């Protein structure tokens, strides 16, 4: 019963209770929060890419650490609800832990809408809405 109740504000669940909703929703139209990296250590990338497309630069990307995408979801939610304390807390973790290999990073938190096959096969996103642009210094 606890697992099915709404979690505390800012949390996705009440640990260690879990509603076991994992990959429950399949659709040809997906909405997802992304961290899009623009520059690392002052050097702009040839084109902005998702954090997970930089396995050489970030160990967490190389390890496909799923906690990063959960943290980005949490940050996107905090931006939408204007929860400044949660924004700062999530940014601290993202920048000091998951991006610790770089001394400076320019990145955006965005909501992307896409067809899963189009994104996988062609890298195509149907729309991107930038929620915030941040820099790790």
């Amino acid at each position, binding site marked *: 019963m606890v697992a099915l109740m709404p979690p505390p504000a800012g949390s996705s669940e009440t640990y*260690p209770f879990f509603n076991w909703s994992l*990959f429950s929703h399949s659709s040809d139209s*997906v909405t997802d929060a992304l961290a899009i990296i623009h520059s690392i250590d002052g050097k702009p990338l040839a084109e902005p890419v998702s954090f997970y497309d930089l396995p050489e630069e970030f160990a967490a990307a190389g390890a496909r650490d799923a906690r990063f995408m*959960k943290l980005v979801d949490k940050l996107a939610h905090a931006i939408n609800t204007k929860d400044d304390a949660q924004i700062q807390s999530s940014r601290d973790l993202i920048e000091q832990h998951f991006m*610790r290999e770089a001394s400076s990073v320019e990145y955006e938190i965005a909501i992307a809408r896409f067809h899963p096959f189009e994104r996988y096969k062609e890298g195509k996103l149907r729309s991107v809405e930038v929620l915030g642009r941040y820099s790790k210094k």
Partner: protein
Amino acid sequence: MTALPNLTRALRALLGGDDRFGAKPFAGLTRAYDIACQNVRYFYLASTLYVWLFIPTLHNSVIHNPPLEHAWPLIWAKGLPILVVVDVISIACATFAALAFWKPANVLWRAGFSLTLLMCAAVPVSLGGVNHGYHEWIWISFILIFLPAQSGIQPDRAAKLSYCLTFGAAQGLILLFYTMAGSWKALYGFAALFRGEPGNFSPDALGWTLADRMAQTNTEPLLGPFLVEYSILAWPMFVGLIFVQLVAIAVAFRPSLHALWGWILIAFHTGTFLMMEIAFPTHIAILLFLLVASPFQRGPMLSWETLHHLPVIGGIFKRLMGSAQPVSTPPISKGGEAHALPNL
């Protein structure tokens, strides 16, 4: 006044079907108790190994002193050097697991393991996201705290019953988790059907999920690209998975299906690795202890009678095979059919 017994009877029929524990539910109790005791010891042996293997990962996750969002089991550690805290709780966890393997009757070791495991699994939670691979492990360890204290020392019938009941509760809880997972998939699937939109019952459903995951995490699992290209092949697999998960709780009450469902769910977790590179090693070990080597398994894992016991579709098999009579279930075997693990 008769509503409650009728409701109970209807629920038993729904969950247990023809494969109820029968008029002699406690036949073979001693053998079931012995197997349950063995499996509990194997649980703590595997826990010892797994936690020791996990210690370097936990250590390395905090070695750079990250800014933690302390999950509630680690609130007490605020202000303390996190590397020391993590090393102490993880080594304590492995030690409690080893002690519980050595003396499983000692509630202190079992409770200590459960508590320290809760704290160890709270480390990744404090780093931004929950790792669901530990949830089943935590809950099983919690349930096993309630094993009767006197077990192992010439237990009486009540202690054996209590031990088997606790073990059965662990089986039921794990199967409930799978039913919860299946319920969400079915709910979203039927909601999409109702709205006339593509969803979980669409032929491409699993292909979309795999493509989304691969693009999101930049991975190339062994079977992922193939099943995206030919996603129609994955359709029956995905619909079958929804069924297997949705009815899992009924299997807790159908002992002849324990081993079969254990293997099916292990195949599912193997599939999630081959298709998505998501591994749940703890879940596989738990399914081995609880279901594949279930102390309550009746008869062989695969037989025509087993098909009759399948939830929802068992009746169809019964009609197809022309058997109108209820199927009798043999008592827990005294031979090797209960898939007991070797004695420790």
